[in-house]
């Protein structure tokens, strides 16, 4: 093969020029779409409906002391319950006892496959029917925590199991060689390492839970139990103005963006440590 063949002039544009032209067209299209949306929107109308200072001012401080607080509360309860149940399920999935593995697998498949809304309805309606006279402790907060946790446990179980399996086999052997029982080795050696591995995905799970806690409105909540979404929706209805929805949205971002940033930082740090 001679270099002449490679350097031979193309008919029309060379591939490199064609690629540059294509990229240029892409940018032009992108800017055109953004401009069109910005120019075509009715800004005065939007401002009046979505960013009314008067309406926004009235939301404070309740949207923080009630809405944000309850969102954080429901999310926290769901996370703690989901983490505990997820850890138990993960250990069951790794258990040498087959019935445990079957149960854990079935649970994970069922609860990963169901819409969260159905789980909320099941908790609010099904639990009182199944155990007559009993109530989920903690009222709405307890129900919300249970519903969120039941679903989160299924996802977290898989995450935790992957984390445990990512710890090299030699770690368990070294721990057992030192005379640790299986349970002791799990608690002191394997699980601490597994959790380091899975902190970033667990943080993402927390972000998801934070958003999913909006489904609490299907449990039927009192004024004091409203979380951000319900709070925003109610006030938007009362005021005939959508600003509360926007403010509620910003409040969510106040929770989720720092969490996402934290997850990313932890991930970077873990990669830097080389483990």
């Amino acid at each position, binding site marked *: 093969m001679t270099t002449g063949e490679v350097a031979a002039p193309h008919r029309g544009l060379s591939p490199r020029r064609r690629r540059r032209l294509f990229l240029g067209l892409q940018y032009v299209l992108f800017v055109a779409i953004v401009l069109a949306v910005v120019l075509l929107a009715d800004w005065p109308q939007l401002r009046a409906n979505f960013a009314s200072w008067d309406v926004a001012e009235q939301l404070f401080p309740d949207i923080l002391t009630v809405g944000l607080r309850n969102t954080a509360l429901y999310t926290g309860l769901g996370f703690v319950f989901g983490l505990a149940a997820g850890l138990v399920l993960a250990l069951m999935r790794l258990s040498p006892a087959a019935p445990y593995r079957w149960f854990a697998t079935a649970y994970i498949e069922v609860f990963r496959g169901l819409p969260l809304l159905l789980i909320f309805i099941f908790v609010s309606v099904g639990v009182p029917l199944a155990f007559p006279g009993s109530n989920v402790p903690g009222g709405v907060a307890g129900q919300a925590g249970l519903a969120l946790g039941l679903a989160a446990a299924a996802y977290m179980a898989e995450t935790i199991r992957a984390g445990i399996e990512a710890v*090299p086999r*030699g*770690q368990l*052997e*070294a*721990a*057992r*060689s*030192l*005379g*640790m*029982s299986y349970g*002791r080795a799990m608690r*002191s*050696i394997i699980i*601490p*390492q597994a959790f*380091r591995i899975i902190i970033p995905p667990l943080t993402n799970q927390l972000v998801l839970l934070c958003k999913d806690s909006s489904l609490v409105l299907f449990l039927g909540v009192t004024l004091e139990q409203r979380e951000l979404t319900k709070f925003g929706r109610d006030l938007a209805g009362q005021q005939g103005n959508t600003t509360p929805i926007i403010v509620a949205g910003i409040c969510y971002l106040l929770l989720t963006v720092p969490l996402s940033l934290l997850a990313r930082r932890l991930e970077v740090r873990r990669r830097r*440590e*080389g*483990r």
Partner: protein
Amino acid sequence: MSGTAIEITDLRKSFGANEVLRGIDLDVRAGEVVCVIGPSGSGKSTLLRCVNLLEEPSSGTVRVAGVEVTDPEVDIDAVRRRIGMVFQSFNLFPHLTALGNVTIAQRKVLRRGKAEAERTAREVLERVGLSDKLASYPARLSGGQQQRVAIARSLAMGPEVMLFDEPTSALDPELVGDVLGVMRELAEDGMTMLVVTHEMSFAREVADRVVFMDDGVVVEEGPPSQVIDAPRHDRTRAFLSRVLDPAAARVPGKGSLGTST
């Protein structure tokens, strides 16, 4: 303490249809250093792992310091406390410092208090020459340092027997000496040691006895001067010539080397 530290009788181990150990009999006296050599796949590591039951033997018995390890009634965790094990890949706990690695089993298994565990840890880490690395995490240590922490971790439990599974095979050549030096001192202090190794010079100098294994059986055993320097069996001789002078090996089944180019 005198007498027999490790007593292995007719030990067999199969993985599925593959019989890795085919009837091993081996005794190690208290204070004795026994090196096990042999080609890879000969069952040396499996033999070692059967002694502290990381592998469950298919049949046969193993007794360590008078306790039958293979007895299903025995508390295996209690037995393992008396058997130190050093792995080829160190297996330090990466989430703990050197000091944490050496104290954790003392505290959780032996139930020693924090002060006592740390005092013991400092002693054994000094013994392996790492007093200045107490606060270092394994990732910050060289392979040789990691392996010495691993030895210290076992020593802190006060074992009666130490098992070494190719302790220097994962090390850069210039770091091997530090680890062998620590092992030599242990031997001089009278520790009972069963060592799987490819380090023939170590075996020759330190071992009281060398065992050559091939294909799941003990082919030959005796003092190093006999097994390494004057082997009786052809298999031992063939293995040793390959280990002692790897550069002399020929590509198997290729005939003489002169024909190529």
